[in-house]
């Protein structure tokens, strides 16, 4: 079973929720798909036994020995990545999309594509099972592709270890890394907060999960900070026939737990707060 924890808006508590679930499950494959801001390794300190570099996008590079400054590449580039700088054709790496068209049409064969292979796929043991995560090189593109590679690796590991649950911590937003994170999972848990922006982003996120026909649950974090807004979120979920999986009150110990590199369910295993997570994960697993 694959469960993905996401949230349109960032900082609603995705990773804290995922961490709490993780330490309540045994023999889990934990996957951090927030590849440009992976955090769960901080709490769970996995012993990395496999590290592979990943070829992300390619970038075009000009060989000035062969370039005649004809400018044909500039005419074909649709990403505004080729300009004349100081009388010479120059490629802007930031705008280059790696489509390779310039290198194909250059009559002098003066443009080559360079692999960017600084992004990493990491995996290893941790105290509740196996962990897999990706780390995107600074400024790298193609995070969706890295998410796919991370998930493929997780499935393989789950099979080898007879792990029944793959638990995925997703990135914020609704674009390609998120779509890659939720494609084909059995359950999506959306973590939101009772604010006007939280509500707005939840609606867009649910639109996205509906498009992909995914079984969706909602957790409202810090619901007591704004009860009126929480009511509106309940109404919206009702209307969409989405089950509220949990209502979490504002709880100062969540930050304390994080600072001490523990999940909240490890930090206070017998608290009422942890009980909410136990009930929630049981509900998902047994549905």
């Amino acid at each position, binding site marked *: 079973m694959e469960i993905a924890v996401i*949230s*349109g*808006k*960032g*900082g*609603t508590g995705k*990773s804290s929720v995922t961490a709490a679930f993780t330490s309540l499950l045994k023999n889990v494959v934990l996957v951090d798909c927030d*590849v*440009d*801001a*992976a*955090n769960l390794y*901080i*709490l769970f300190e996995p012993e990395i036994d496999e590290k592979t570099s990943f070829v992300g996008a*390619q970038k075009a590079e000009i060989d000035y020995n062969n370039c005649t400054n004809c400018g044909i590449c500039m005419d*074909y580039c*649709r*990403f505004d990545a080729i300009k004349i700088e100081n009388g010479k054709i120059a490629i802007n790496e*930031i*705008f280059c*999309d790696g*489509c*390779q*068209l310039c290198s*194909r*049409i250059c009559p002098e064969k003066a443009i080559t594509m360079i692999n960017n292979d600084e992004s990493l796929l990491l995996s290893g043991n941790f105290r509740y099972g196996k962990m897999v995560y990706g780390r*995107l090189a*600074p*400024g790298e*593109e193609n*995070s*969706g592709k890295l998410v796919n590679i991370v998930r493929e690796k997780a499935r393989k590991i789950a099979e080898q270890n007879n792990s029944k649950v793959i638990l995925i911590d997703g*990135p*914020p*937003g*609704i*674009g*390609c*890394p*998120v*779509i890659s994170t939720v494609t084909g999972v059995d359950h999506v848990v959306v973590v939101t*907060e*009772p*604010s*006007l*922006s*939280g509500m*707005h*982003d939840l609606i*867009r996120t649910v*639109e*996205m999960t509906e*498009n992909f026909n995914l079984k969706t649950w909602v957790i409202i974090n810090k619901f007591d*900070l*704004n009860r009126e*807004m929480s009511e509106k979120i309940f109404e919206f979920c009702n209307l969409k026939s989405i089950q509220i999986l949990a209502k979490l009150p504002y709880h100062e110990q969540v*930050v304390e737990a*994080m*600072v001490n*590199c523990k999940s909240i369910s490890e930090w206070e295993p017998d608290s009422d707060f942890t009980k909410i997570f136990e009930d929630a994960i049981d509900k998902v697993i047994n549905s």
Partner: protein
Amino acid sequence: MEVEKLVNKTIKIAIASGKGGTGKTLIATSMFYAIQENFKNSVLVDCDAEEPNSVLFFKANLQRSVEVVQKVPVIDTDKCTFCGKCHDYCAYNAIFIIPPSRIIKVIEELCHGCGACSVACEYDAITEKDMEVGRVNVFVSNEGFNIIEARMKNGVMTPVPVIKAAHKYTVDKQVVIMDSPPGTSCPFIQTVVEADYVILVTEPTPFGLSDLKQSVNTLKTMNKNYGVIINRAGLGDKKIFDYLKSEDIDLLAEIPFDKEIAVLYSNGNIVAAHNDKIKILFANLFESILERYGNSSN
């Protein structure tokens, strides 16, 4: 500081953070509000095109909404010989082909609109059509200020074309404040590439610190000027302060954790409009950034 000295300076400031939910939008909306008295020719641009919500904080009317399109190929199967050259040219695996069965399909969601397939085709079988990838919405607030919103269409893979399009609506403005998407990948890059200065917002927790380091490393490769605001100061631990000191990074401000601020914000209020301390903090911070990093317009 004398505002008169600053009238000839222009600046683009991006408010960004690796970790989501650290307070980017709170700071962008408050800073935009705080400078309106002294800088009439200012615009707020919401570049978080996947989840744009800055405009929710203002009383503003939609002035116009412009469609942003991307080219996608259309294959004429009568002319197509199923040679596969377009498939070979496509760097995004957006063309699916089974030559023996005479099947060829464009997977529009994967297409980046680069035009390589059209160049590849020797049989004149590929034309292109426009596909909507989002909109740029131009709002006018009750106070007469523009707010530009980049809004990606739901289901589209990348917000980058919409963000690029939104940047075009900021010419002739003295001050541009940009609310950036979270993370450090392409949407973040396409936003901060336009900025003269980047304000990184973080919180004093292990997650906040880890993501801040990644943002700093990315901005270093881009040679950008930047400083850090610590939001919800008082929670968490002190490690982030040690990091800033050891890396010699400017700590621009600390915003204490305050339930009142959280409630104001959650109801869709601009915090600076209800809290004078925050308003003065951002007005002063903005002016010092403009003085140090602004461009002379003459």
